[in-house]
């Protein structure tokens, strides 16, 4: 008990030869081991912590339908086709692919955003007010502005060599640029040929030796 008794030694106590004066002890505790332990735990938790928990992204696929009238028609003027090839290569064309493939262009993940934005603005500029669509949007409590891009449709066509990250990045690009209509589709044989032809110039030529 003596250690806590730091107050006046006298008070009601008798002073005399038989009464030993209590030794004053410091109340200070050495905190160092506690701090050591505290920081050890902090480092442990920092290393084990998974700060960002994974998120999920919605993907809705259309029903496979052989019936012509169930399939969504894509207006040629508002279509943008993006194809993914080997090693994160990216190709795109607007509208329909010309027979000579002259509108088939190659791109990168960095540049494709500008292409998407450019095409979207182009479609929005060509928009002729469609009261039916806007009325429907208001009724469904959506932004009537979305009607301006109703003809805009992005087709994402990953080839067999495309990797998953590229597909997700492109789908994400649609969210980033607020593209309302897009779909994952298989590439046509003609497109695959063009992709392998344009890739064949540089990297695929090597294993031929």
């Amino acid at each position: 008990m003596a250690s806590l008794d730091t107050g006046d030694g006298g008070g009601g106590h008798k002073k005399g030869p038989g009464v030993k004066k209590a030794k004053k002890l410091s109340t200070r505790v050495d905190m160092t081991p506690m701090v050591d332990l505290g920081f050890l735990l902090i480092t442990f938790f920092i290393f084990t912590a998974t700060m960002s928990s994974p998120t999920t992204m919605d993907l809705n696929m259309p029903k496979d339908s052989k019936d012509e009238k169930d399939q969504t028609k894509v207006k040629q003027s508002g279509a943008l086709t993006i194809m993914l090839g080997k090693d994160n290569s990216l190709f795109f064309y607007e509208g329909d692919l010309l027979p000579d493939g002259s509108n088939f262009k190659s791109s990168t993940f960095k540049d494709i955003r500008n292409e998407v934005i450019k095409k979207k603005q182009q479609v929005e500029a060509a928009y002729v007010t469609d009261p039916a669509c806007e009325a429907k949007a208001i009724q469904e409590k959506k932004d009537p502005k979305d009607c301006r891009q109703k003809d805009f449709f992005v087709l994402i066509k990953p080839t067999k060599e495309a990797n998953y990250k590229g597909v997700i990045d492109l789908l994400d690009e649609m969210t980033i640029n607020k593209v309302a209509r897009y779909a994952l589709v298989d590439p046509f044989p003609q497109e695959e040929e063009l992709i392998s032809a344009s890739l064949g110039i540089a990297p695929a030529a090597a294993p031929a030796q």
Partner: protein
Amino acid sequence: MPKVNIAKKSTDTDMTPFVDIAFLILSFFIMATKFKPAEAVPIQTPNSVSSQTLPENDAVMISIDKDDKVYFSIMTKNDKQKAIDIIVAASTARNMPVTAQEAAQYFPGDMIGVPFNKLKGYLNLPGDQKKVYVQDGIPVKDSSNNELYYWIAATRSVFAGQTLKYLIKGDNVSKFPAFKAVIDALKKNDEQKYNLVTMPEGAPAGTELYKERNNIK
């Protein structure tokens, strides 16, 4: 000349505020930490701007690893019986039934990546061996023998009438055909809505989404 008397200052610093902060940080980390469940197969997921959180219950997760192997996990930690039912139903549908006792050795959330003919052997492995056992992946590539189809069909029948989410978790470097095979198996079961597991990232500056999220007109 009188001697200048320099006061002797104690070298002791008061550690109390320092300790206070240290323990504040410590308690923050204790609260914020969620331990990563041990994964049999590490999967590096891509990033996306999506901000929806991952459901932990009433979901099945289909994982694709970097070698395009497909795994199936049943995320029903609050109802283990469902996981058992799914395993029994799926294996029975393929005429390679496992018993409920064997299925009970599956721990919800674990990844199953074996063809049905090896399922019995896999489930009977002791816990620590299960973790190191190299699984071959569920066969999906061959559309006539897409075993994932049976897993999903069994899950659908067990979850009939209840909410069920399909999570697809793919590795960055996995190839698209594996993903397509998974989608095909789901589509064959008339399931069109999936959730792709990603890591969060911010919307790139200047884009429309960025403007919307930051209320810039």
